[in-house]
């Protein structure tokens, strides 16, 4: 595991010199800040909306849909484009350690961003009396942690398929949108709807976790997506060596 952490640490630090990572962070905080200000200034003060720590979470989830492909697009594609993967794979590094290390570094960075967004619920909590329901907030954030991890793992897998970050971005985004909208098909009845509902990124989050209900099935869903994606990423890199 030491190798995983060495790779993750480098990846995490790289985000602080990466223009793409800064752009993503600025986009997240500008949009969330704007939404938060409007909610507080016009909604909460006028009594039109109830104090709720989750008022930034819904927009955050939508932003993440676009932000995570931008974060993951270069993870493995850049290593392949620059040829640095040749040195990594001729040093005593296993392919899975490389893939997991890259994913972990990106997850660390996104968790940092997620941690900073915690400031909004704190502000609401201090502005209102008796404050907000922190149980619901914790469940919603826990769900975000799992969901972001899965999104980043999917992005890492897609990044392993390309030598160029741009196609990696668009394919990841397309796949995310598919997992997003497939939830809409789950509103009917029948096996197909049930499958669609079970595959949906949105349903697993909004049906329980967002409402404060921690259902093991939802966490298992995100964990399965994470593990399968990282496994596929490892297999892709392994297969490239044999070509």
């Amino acid at each position, binding site marked *: 595991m*030491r*190798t995983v952490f*060495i*790779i993750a640490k*480098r990846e995490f630090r*790289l985000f602080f*010199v990466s223009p793409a990572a800064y752009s993503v962070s600025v986009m997240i905080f500008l949009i969330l800040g704007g939404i938060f200000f409007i909610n507080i200034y016009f909604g909460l003060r006028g009594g039109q909306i109830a104090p709720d720590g989750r008022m930034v979470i819904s927009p955050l989830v939508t932003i993440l849909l676009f932000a995570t492909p931008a974060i993951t697009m270069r993870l493995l594609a850049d290593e392949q484009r*620059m*040829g*640095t*993967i*040749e*040195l*990594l*794979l*001729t*040093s*005593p*590094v*296993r392919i899975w350690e490389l893939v997991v290390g890259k994913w972990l570094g990106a997850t660390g960075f996104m968790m940092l961003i997620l941690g900073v967004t915690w400031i909004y619920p704190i502000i609401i909590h201090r502005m209102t009396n008796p404050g907000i329901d922190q149980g619901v907030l914790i469940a919603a954030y826990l769900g975000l942690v799992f969901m972001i991890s899965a999104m980043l793992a999917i992005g890492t897998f897609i990044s392993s398929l390309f030598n160029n970050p741009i196609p990696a971005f668009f394919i990841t985004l397309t796949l995310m949108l598919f997992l997003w909208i497939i939830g809409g098909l789950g509103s009917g009845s029948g096996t197909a709807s049930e499958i669609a509902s079970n595959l949906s990124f949105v349903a697993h989050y909004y049906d329980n976790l967002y409402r404060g209900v921690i259902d093991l099935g939802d966490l298992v869903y995100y964990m399965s997506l994470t593990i399968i994606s990282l496994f596929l990423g490892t297999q892709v890199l392994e297969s490239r*060596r*044999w*070509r």
Partner: protein
Amino acid sequence: MIKVEGLTKFYGDFPAIQDLTFNAKRGEILGFLGPNAAGKTTTMRILAGYMPPSSGSVRIAGFDVLEESLEVRRRIGYLPETVPLYPEMSIWEYLEYMGSLRKVDNLDKRIDAVIDEVNLGDRERSYIGNLSKGLRQRVGLAQALIHQPEVLILDEPTIGLDPAQIIEVRELIQGLGQERTILLSTHILTEAQQICDRVIIINKGRMVAEDTPENLQSQIAGATKIIVRASSETRELVELIETMPQKMDVIAGDSEGEVMISAAPGLDIRPLLARKILDAGLDLLELRTTGISLEEIFLQLTQSEDKDEGEE
């Protein structure tokens, strides 16, 4: 230290290398010589554990490169043809990263030592993105040496360097070769001649010769060449020498009255030649032997291979 047997690699249907077999001893600098697209980089990559062969086996320091890949990778230092580096990192940060991946003990001290070894002392905090090609090559060499490997695999280590840098890198490799086995690929013949203890020549993925540069010169080229210049016309001189009973090839030289002679190995015909020319009433202006260069051997081997293939 390196044992390669029947190594073959196909890219689809195209055979990049076929049935390569060779060994390298501890402390030996083995040159891998061949024209572009001969299969040098493919061989280097397989030996470094980056890609598997289609068939054949490679053992490095007693470990199989396919079955015990991690053990092999712990023992080798590898410099690819195009040195891939992270431009956003400083030299120090980069070596720290590569050293940590290789679990080097006392890493800080080791980085200092290797930076001195490759002569990067005053640039250790410079960003890699700002370095010249020569300096990048040295950083690549430093990462290959950071863990003090038993085997160094260097793919065209002097490509793209200026003449002064080439001399520096060659001297560095010669120094390193005293303690470890080095496998070095190059298409520069003088480089192989200068720094390698033994040379393997490959062409179109097949080995065409293997020996020390000196033995290749004497065995493959056969005889030494003799240059003779006399006070006569070239044609007349050629005819005169051809009347001698000894078997030899005589061709006209670069200037009037000059001929080049290739005789069978082990036969020194210089006294006979001198007598023949003087007996014919000519003045002998020059008589000297010249060794055949590795370049000529290389062309002879690779061209005869191409010719054989054409005939088939």
